[in-house]
């Protein structure tokens, strides 16, 4: 199949845009029925955002599948309780679909809370619960009263929308805990980290930067999260929001109701990590803080820049494609790849907003294709057309890249090494180099002058071939 054989779904024409060529661009719309979309649902969005709150009980109210597919699939690490790594489900069967699942939910909650004594419990509604009309809110209230533990409904039936809708529901649920704890002893120079999932321990690295600067991290809400931190996070002076998709809603609630300003940051790549630290220092208007930030950045860059540089020679001029969940990650990736001498020729996201894409268009080079809510055929088309060397994406994109003979870097929740912060940039460069420079690509037919099976046969004297 050549790239010309693949068409863009007519209905999606305005969701594909080429810098320097196209005019209109549309995003933030529902996927077309019948498309092979890479998107997931509202339930998935809620579940992934709250999952890293490690000392809470997370129970999926629905048939077994919804609980099975997201059981321990994210590498969001916890420094203590591992309760979140279990999979709890009401496993709804035909009987409950007809007569309602409220009783089963109540019983399940009581059994689990008695057994595990969690700090709080989140109850996720699935499609079917939205349809049969269980009063999840009422059950949660009753169980809270009986057990004395906060039981929080998450209004996340899948059909409500994309993951983005689910993020909102997750923020609403988490917000119910905010303000229920004491803020005593929280320093003036304090922040919350929102949208940092502590994949492979990244939140720990970032937390350490702030501690070195003299800033207290009150809570990392979505990574190595704790219920008690969430209860008192309204005592922080500033919210630093990473991951443009998941957490802005909670940040806005904290801004509106508690007067805590928010700043969007990224901890990916030297430039963005340094900028995030400077932004925080600047906010507190304390020259000493800024000095410490500058010192930290100097030290870290002096330590890691030479290591990153080692990888540049092999990677210079290579072309990259990226397809990620949220747009903010895409911005940082474009910059980080540029610092490795690589060029981004295709950039796309599952759930970017108009504002996100505007920014993405600005930072990309001419000729870069930008896609919203793409599908495998389209991605394959552009990878071939642009002769891409590296694809950055998630689980569904990996095998497509490999099949096309293109290197891959997982920048989603299945990654195994920390890619955030200064040290993370070295890991990123190393991971990219490991894949891009792998000897396996020499077997790719289209990079090979001959389509023969194996090396050209050499003729042997006396033997006719």
């Amino acid at each position: 199949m050549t790239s010309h054989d693949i068409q863009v779904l007519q209905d999606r024409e305005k969701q594909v845009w080429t810098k320097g060529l196209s005019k209109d661009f549309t995003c933030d719309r529902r996927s077309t029925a019948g498309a092979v979309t890479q998107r997931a649902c509202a339930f998935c969005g809620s579940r992934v955002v709250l999952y890293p709150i490690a000392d809470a009980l997370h129970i999926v109210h629905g048939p077994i599948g919804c609980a099975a597919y997201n059981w321990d699939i994210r590498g969001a690490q916890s420094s203590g309780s591992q309760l979140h790594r279990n999979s709890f489900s009401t496993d709804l069967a035909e009987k409950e679909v007809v007569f309602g699942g409220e009783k089963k939910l109540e019983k399940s909650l009581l059994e689990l809370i008695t057994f595990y004594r969690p700090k709080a419990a989140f109850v996720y509604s699935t499609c079917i619960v939205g349809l049969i009309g269980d009063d999840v809110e009422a059950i949660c209230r009753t169980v809270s009263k009986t057990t004395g533990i906060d039981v929080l409904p998450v209004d996340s039936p899948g059909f409500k929308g994309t993951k983005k809708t689910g993020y909102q529901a997750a923020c609403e649920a988490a917000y119910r805990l905010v303000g229920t704890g004491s803020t005593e002893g929280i320093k003036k120079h304090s922040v919350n980290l929102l949208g940092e999932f502590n994949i492979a321990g990244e939140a720990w690295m970032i937390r350490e930067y702030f501690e070195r600067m003299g800033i207290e991290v009150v809570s990392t809400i979505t990574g190595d999260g704790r219920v008690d931190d969430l209860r008192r996070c309204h005592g922080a002076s500033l919210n630093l929001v990473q991951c443009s998709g998941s957490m802005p809603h909670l940040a806005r609630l904290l801004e509106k109701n508690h007067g805590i300003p928010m700043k969007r940051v990224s901890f990916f790549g030297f430039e963005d990590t340094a900028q995030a630290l400077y932004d925080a220092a600047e906010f507190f208007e304390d020259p000493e803080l800024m000095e410490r930030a500058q010192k930290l950045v100097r030290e870290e860059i002096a330590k890691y820049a030479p290591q990153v540089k080692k990888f540049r020679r092999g990677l210079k001029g290579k072309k990259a494609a990226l397809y990620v969940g949220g747009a903010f990650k895409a911005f940082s990736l474009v910059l980080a790849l540029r610092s490795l001498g690589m060029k981004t020729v295709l950039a796309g996201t599952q759930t970017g907003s108009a504002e996100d894409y505007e920014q993405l268009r600005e930072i990309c080079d001419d000729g870069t294709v930008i896609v919203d809510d793409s599908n495998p055929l389209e991605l394959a088309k552009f990878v071939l057309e642009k002769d891409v060397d590296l694809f950055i994406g998630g689980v569904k994109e990996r095998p497509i890249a490999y099949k096309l003979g293109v290197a891959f870097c997982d920048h989603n929740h299945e990654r195994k090494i920390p890619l955030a912060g200064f040290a993370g940039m070295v890991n990123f460069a190393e991971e990219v180099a490991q894949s891009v420079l792998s000897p396996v690509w020499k077997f790719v037919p289209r990079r090979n002058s001959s389509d023969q099976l194996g090396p050209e046969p050499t003729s042997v004297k006396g033997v006719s071939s």
Partner: protein
Amino acid sequence: MLEGTTAEIRERKALRVNPVKTCQPIGAMYAALGVNGCMPHSHGSQGCCAYHRSHLTRHYKEPVVATTSSFTEGASVFGGMSNLTTAIENIFSIYEPEIVAVHTTCLSEVIGDDIPTIIKKAAEAGKIPEGKTVIHANTPSFVGSHITGFANQCEAFVKYLAEPRQGEEPRKMINIFPGFVDPADMREIRRLADDLGIEYLMVPDASDVLDSAYDGKYQMYPDGGTPVAGLKMMGENQLSVGLGPLASEPALKTIAKKCEQPTELLELPIGVSATDAFVNSLRLAAGVKVPTEMVRERGRLIDMISDMSQYLHKKKVALFGDPDHLTSMTRFLVEIGMEPAIVIAGHPGKKWEKKIREIAPGAEVRASSDMHYLHQWIKNHPVDLLIGNSYGKLVAKAEDIPFVRFGFPILDRVGHRAFSIVGYRGAMRLIEKMTDTLFDHTDRLCPDEDLELIQ
């Protein structure tokens, strides 16, 4: 990470902790991928489709393509007819499949969408191109498990596509329903049939689809898969052999009724006697002799079992997973002198429980159960070996039990993609895996003076 699990077993009625099953649609999707040029279509929210594709990709390490009706709140209130009609139109015009296999989800089941009528109307409105087909299977997620979904999709192939026999005499050809096994297993089942020299049609066949060879291209429809033309001819064949009762029985029942075809339902050919039964069934139906090489292959398996028997004898094994796999595996373990101590399925079924108790009297057997119960039971009754899918590593680590991966899904190892566990060769591979794991465990933990060089 399972430090919260205690030895004290509480009877639970209401909930599942760490499941040993998943839902029907993923099984239907897998079965549909085993048909050449087939686009599986998930009639529900887009999350279902995304989850199934991701989960299958994690197991097979291959691109998995399927479309979705992308339900909205509106569709959930007014029904999914317009979504499915639009989807059918879009799929044929853009992705150009030969056939679309629609499966339902809990959402569309509860709404009560009448899929056959929607398909009929789409056909009448000219939305299904000439010569192309749309079929459907009902796969409510709140009934059974992923195995039920696979079985329902296989039954749908027969229901929609098989025609009653036209010819006077049946064709000398056998339909083989392989059950919910890996592509490598389907490949091995085919090899056994090829070596016996029989003509057959395998339904479905995911080899060369979900274990396709690297060629530097992206093919939305890889070369493998049962051809639709073959499926239409199923009724002409002399016999249908179904492997794995839960995965294959509905298809067999329907073909027996619709095409008046004889059928034979067997266990999955895992282990000596289950493979013997399969080989015998094909041999007798086709009137062929078992080739010498296959007799030798079996002999090499028995030889390996005897070589290793002292290390296998009376070893206590905990198993969990899907019922068809567990039935054959339990039988195999008994055959080689091991002792199945606990056998746990997530899929419901009293009949299955009874069967396992017959094969392994004294074993703790539970259907509709979960890993949490398995773990608690093991805490009270230690075992020598744990066998099951990747989730077992959590229990294996917590209790330090040697662990062999077996079944679906395997998310953290590569072997199942290339090497089969069915047939005589598959049994040899299982022996190798079990003994390697047991020996590695002993070697790592034993004092230096006990380290054995020769085993």
